[in-house]
């Protein structure tokens, strides 16, 4: 097989894997939008905050230590212990649930029935507030995140492809792990949504707030639930991205990678977020590989949006989004 075909196949496979990582971020957006009609601008910062909290708890860091030291003249930074990864993950989930309750109690409860643009702006405020709180709470330094996620080239795939084609494909173990996590996560979300009482309530709220309220579903409870699930998804995304590059404030920018996925897959579809992620991942990687070298490279950021825009022109609701029909 010609080298260029093999290279393109390798790029395509890696594009699929990268697409899964984008989907993980996009899922959080979809969950909140589906249940509340809110486009959550803070989703990227939530991933950052969840990852910061996880590392902070694992390392036994004292939250708000700089603030405490500045006020009381103390010099404390660490508790002096390390928390096992699993316990730290459970504690971080609890923090994200608390965050969901606070968001509902102090922001969105006061904005019920407001225009979508008002709710969107509230999430912009929330994003910057949360970034500031994350900074105050855990500091701005880069943190190494090690929760045992495998990294590096997968030897088996390399040796099989080398045996078959004379060229060993590179696939990152972290990407394979992320794919498994994404599959499990989507399966859990689908099962939760289809087969549990809370899931059905969540779908009812997503369909019609007023009708759901009229049959006794608590809107407040459902919103806390959905923000908690989005917080959990943010933790998964933040952990995987943080394991790649260390936990630092640029992590919040992964949201930019999710936007074209949402435009393409639709804001209301979980399978859309996955398929959209895969199309964007493969599309941008192949474009960079085939066309990038001719036009100076660094095409991925903008090409993902061009691709999404093309889909948007022909299918405004996205590939899997629900078509909005308003009867007069």
């Amino acid at each position, binding site marked *: 097989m010609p080298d260029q075909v093999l290279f393109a196949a390798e790029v395509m496979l*890696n594009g699929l894997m990268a697409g899964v990582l984008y989907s993980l971020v996009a899922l959080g957006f979809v969950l909140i939008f589906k249940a509340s009609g809110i486009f959550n601008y803070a989703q990227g910062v939530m991933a950052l905050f969840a990852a910061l909290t996880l590392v902070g708890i694992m390392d036994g860091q004292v939250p708000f230590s*700089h603030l405490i030291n500045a006020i009381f003249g103390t010099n404390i*930074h660490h508790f002096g212990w390390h928390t096992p990864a699993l316990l730290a993950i459970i504690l971080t989930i609890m923090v994200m649930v608390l965050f969901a309750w606070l968001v509902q109690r102090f922001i969105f409860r006061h904005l019920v029935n407001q225009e979508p643009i008002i709710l969107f702006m509230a999430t912009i405020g929330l994003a910057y507030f949360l970034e500031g709180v994350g900074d105050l709470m855990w500091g*701005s330094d880069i943190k190494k995140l090690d929760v045992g996620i495998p990294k590096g080239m997968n030897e088996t795939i390399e040796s099989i492809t080398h045996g078959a084609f004379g060229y060993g494909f590179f696939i990152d173990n972290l990407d394979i792990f992320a794919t498994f996590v994404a599959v499990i996560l989507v399966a859990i979300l689908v099962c939760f949504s289809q087969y549990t009482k809370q899931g059905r309530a969540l779908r009812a709220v997503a369909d019609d707030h007023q009708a759901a309220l009229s049959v006794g579903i608590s809107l407040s409870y459902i919103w806390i639930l959905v923000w908690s699930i989005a917080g959990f998804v943010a933790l998964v995304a933040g952990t995987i991205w943080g394991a*790649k590059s260390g936990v*630092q*404030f*640029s992590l*919040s920018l992964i949201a930019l990678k999710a936007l074209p996925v949402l435009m393409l897959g639709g804001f209301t579809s979980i399978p859309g977020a996955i398929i959209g992620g895969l199309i964007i991942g493969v599309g941008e990687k192949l474009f960079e590989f085939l066309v990038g070298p001719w036009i100076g490279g660094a095409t991925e950021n903008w090409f993902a949006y061009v691709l999404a825009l093309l889909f948007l022109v022909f299918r405004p609701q996205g590939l899997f989004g629900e078509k909005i029909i308003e009867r007069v």
Partner: protein
Amino acid sequence: MKLKLKLTSIVLGAVMATGPALADLVLPMLSYRTGAYAVNGIPFADGYNDYLTLMNERDGGVGGVKIDIRECETGYNTEKGVECYESLKGTGALIFAPLSTGITYQLIPKATVDGTNIHSMGYGRTSAKNGKVFRNVFNYPANYWDGASIAVKHIMDQEGGDLKGKKITLLYHNSGYGKEPIRTLQELAKKHGFEYKGIAVDHPGQEQKSQWLQIRQQRPDYVLMWGWGVMNQVAIQEAANVRFPMDKFIGIWWSASENDTVPAGAGAHGYKGLALHGSGTDYPLYADMQKYVVDAGLAAGAGDQVGTVLYSRGMYNAFLSVEAIKTAQKLAGVGDVNAAQVRDGMEALNITEETMAAAGLPGFAPPFSVSCENHGGPGLGMVSQWDAEAQKWSLITGLIASDMDVIQPLIDADSAAFAAEAGITPGCG
């Protein structure tokens, strides 16, 4: 009437309180402690601030005049950087340290008109080395083109002096900063017969799979990196993933700090970076830094960055500012110097071994002098290597001089273009 007088005095008092105290030496620091690049901005800003605080606390300022440090947050955003400059230029600011090539490019025409001074230490517009055109801009002790040349010289040394047929790839941040060394590397490729290829990474550089697959497929002999922030950490991790030999991966001095290598763990072992100065706390200065700044609770940050590469760079930047002010004070015969006098001081700067030793930094960085013709200093650099087990950078070469036969014509051409564009008649005095 009484009320009016009272109000006027309150307003005047408030205005005076926000302005600089009389006879203070105002040193602005355009820093970024927030945003995507805060991880690198914080240690640099801490080092810069702490050195100036040490001068105030231990020596009572410079030449008996206290330093007024004005830190302004830019978030590594060019527009915010320009806003910081505009808000600080009227405060009697002596030297601006923009800590961003993008901001530096925007400030150069303004500084030329406003008569303010810019010191872009190891970054910014490379041709600012030509002081006959860039009268108020200094980029000593080395610039990006020096960096590119030093890296190629090191590679030549590794390859027994012959680069014919070798492939060198530049992985660069797709910005003004990242693109700076391209022209120099193209010229060096012509001179030494190696094959040059550039691969761009878009801001912020969180996802680099395509770039590293290209590198894996093209199999260059060496990869140079001009990265910043998360781009560095991801690149080093990806290089380890594709098993690129780390001792053939060399970063510019902005891609060679602990922040860049620690997240990749053992995979980063052997990665190389250029260095303008030493790092670590094995210098006499740190005893005073601990006593007068950290222990006194006056450190700019948590005090946990002391001795790191970027902290050392911020401190070195502040040291050079202080030495320029001392030189200006000597030349002017007064302590309370202004920006024009400090410009003369920067141009007459002479850093000797004795100067470094007297500051408690013996052997920290090479001696050099500045002149009207040369605002860029000697263009010397070293190569350091990361030891993942010891978690530290170690210098592995002595000082390497850049290839001025290649660089000088590029500087002359670029500065002449700026002079023509800005209507500047080049000259000294």
